[in-house]
């Protein structure tokens, strides 16, 4: 395969349908989560990626078997592409016993390690996954594997020291890392103008000495092409790529945020560039029959209904079930003071 051939030509019809499926699944899943949130079934906050789905789907779709990725809060779609189930995500958001973290941690804060491909769990502190995934692929390289790692960072997250230390180390190490700077113009309520004096994040690539590319983050094929090229370079030992994906967060930072701080024009303008509508238009104008897309949409709905049902059926965790795994094989000591325990047992000094 050559990476200059555009995705539209290179991807099979089924692959294009698969991309469409994941886009719909990502959005449909989040819409269901919004309903759950309104019903008070989501424990804690809900963070949407509405309008940014292509950044997660197009990029993760370019990974191959065995590759590593860590999603941030708005990359829930990538989890689906890489084999995570809506059921798991529903369970995470509802803090259920059947959630991958068994209710210990929230939303996308879970992970897995597998020869098929791994998802080291993210933590909240932005930027931290960049040095961690750099170490991950350094380890893979030491073991003779050509594994590539993919992760994302927001425009806001680029301001962290961890972003800098991690990306600089990755570049020095020529680590097979692909970093997508998801530039949606806002960090919570903070516009990019207050985040950096140079809003062209792709310019950071030159400073660090790695490849850089800016893409339309709402064009799933453009994101796929850029990521695929970066993944190939990384696998060939050419080091990291920073891809700046231009997009827009079409909901508040979280459901509670009405984003009054965003100018209406900006929202209207981006509303015309919805990544799913754009891709649907592309497919239709390339001879795909509406029925095919309708069929995919229906399949997504059906799947989500059953996945949600099983998730809702899951119990909440047992109260005392989060005392294990502090150290390997260890269980945290019951914090009840000794004399209280004796007291219970009717014992005295």
């Amino acid at each position, binding site marked *: 395969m050559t990476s200059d051939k555009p995705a539209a030509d290179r991807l099979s019809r089924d692959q294009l349908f698969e991309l469409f499926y994941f886009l719909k699944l990502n959005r449909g899943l989040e819409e269901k989560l919004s309903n759950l949130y309104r019903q008070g079934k989501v424990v804690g906050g809900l963070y949407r990626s509405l309008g940014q789905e292509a950044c997660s789907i197009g990029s993760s779709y370019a990974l191959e078997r065995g590759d590593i990725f860590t999603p941030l809060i708005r990359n829930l779609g990538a989890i689906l592409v890489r084999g995570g189930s809506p059921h798991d995500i529903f369970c995470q958001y509802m803090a*259920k016993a059947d959630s991958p973290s068994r*209710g*210990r941690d929230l939303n996308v804060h879970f992970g897995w390690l597998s020869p098929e491909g791994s998802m080291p769990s993210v*933590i909240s502190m932005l930027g931290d996954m960049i040095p961690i995934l750099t170490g991950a692929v350094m380890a893979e390289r030491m073991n003779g594997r050509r594994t590539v790692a993919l992760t994302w960072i927001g425009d806001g997250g680029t*301001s962290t020291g961890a972003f800098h230390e991690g990306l600089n180390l990755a570049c020095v190490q020529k680590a097979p890392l692909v970093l997508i700077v998801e530039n949606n113009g806002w*960090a919570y309520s903070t516009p990019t103008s207050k985040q950096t004096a140079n809003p062209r994040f792709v310019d950071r690539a030159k400073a660090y000495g790695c490849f850089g590319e800016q893409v339309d983050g709402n064009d799933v094929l453009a994101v796929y092409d850029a990521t695929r090229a970066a993944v190939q370079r990384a696998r060939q030992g050419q080091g990291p790529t920073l891809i700046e994906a231009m997009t827009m967060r079409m909901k508040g930072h979280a459901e509670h945020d009405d984003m009054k701080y965003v100018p209406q024009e900006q929202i209207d303008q981006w509303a015309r560039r919805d990544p799913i509508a754009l891709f649907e238009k592309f497919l239709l104008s390339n001879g795909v029959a509406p029925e095919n897309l309708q069929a995919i949409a229906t399949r997504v709905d059906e799947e989500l209904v059953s996945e949600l049902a099983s998730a809702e059926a899951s119990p*909440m*965790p047992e109260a005392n079930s989060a005392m294990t795994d502090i150290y390997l094989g260890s269980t945290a000591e019951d*914090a009840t003071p000794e004399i*209280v325990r004796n007291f219970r047992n009717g014992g005295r000094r």
Partner: protein
Amino acid sequence: MATLTYLEAIREAMDQEMSRDRRVFILGEDVGAYGGAFRVTAGFLEKFGPERVIDTPISETGLIGAAIGASLFGMRPIAELQFIDFIACGFNQIVNYAAKSRFRWGGGVPIVIRGPSGAGVHGGPFHSQSPESYFMNVPGLKIVVPATPTDAKGLMLAAIRDPDPVLFLEHKYLYRRLKEEVPEGDYITPIGEARIAREGEDVSIITYGAMVHSSMEAAEIVAQEGLSVEILDLRTLLPMDRPRILETVKKTGRVLIVHEATKTGGPGGEIAALIAEHAFLHLDAPVVRVAPPDTPVPYSPPLEEFFLPNAAKIAEAIRAVTEY
């Protein structure tokens, strides 16, 4: 006196000081247009302008460093952390610059570092932390932990006016759940002074923050059983109010230490050590710590409830200590 929530009391204190003293300004993530993730600084941008209410990049090291630098040049910065958990990302500036500066070369660092701390709102391992233990062994730093709206205001005024760096831990569970009459105007709660939250004879509970309220509930429960509990609300963890701690210990001879930080290595150790050294002969029972098990703060409600101390668990410990 106006009735204010814990959050409103913090807001009022900062508002008052910013109105009174132009050296005071706020910087942090989303503190401006948005008024902070918890809206503590709501309205400040409009009232004080963008030069004194500064939205920073996502840079805890950067913004705490900038606060330190500004404080060396006559300002009184308040650095907000969106959640106190992110203090780990600015840790070095606090322990190595702010805390040691006056001692090393005479440069005082009058800054306030504040943010939402504590659990009970299902925030999970990274939005529920009680970070005080990281800083208990850092000379030069002050740590305050208000439990009431009145002390939230009084300690904030004191912290802003303090000539040294103050870590101001706001308990997010209390933000909107607590409401009380709060003294208007210039009301100060002196840093370093604990408060008797409840007078009693049989057992002393030494605690702070949200656990003051769980302890008060527990005291009510055991009062029905004829037990008289004294509750000391530390209010400040560094420097600790040793005299008042020893006073209540000597009065009752039985001590519970209650905190939300996990048990091993938590602030309770320092309190127990003070008592061990200075009140040895006055103890009629072992000093007992009621604190969460040694795990991260779990997310799911049943797990978090099991993790946190509460009135029932504290009441049981009171009974055990008194019957000892």
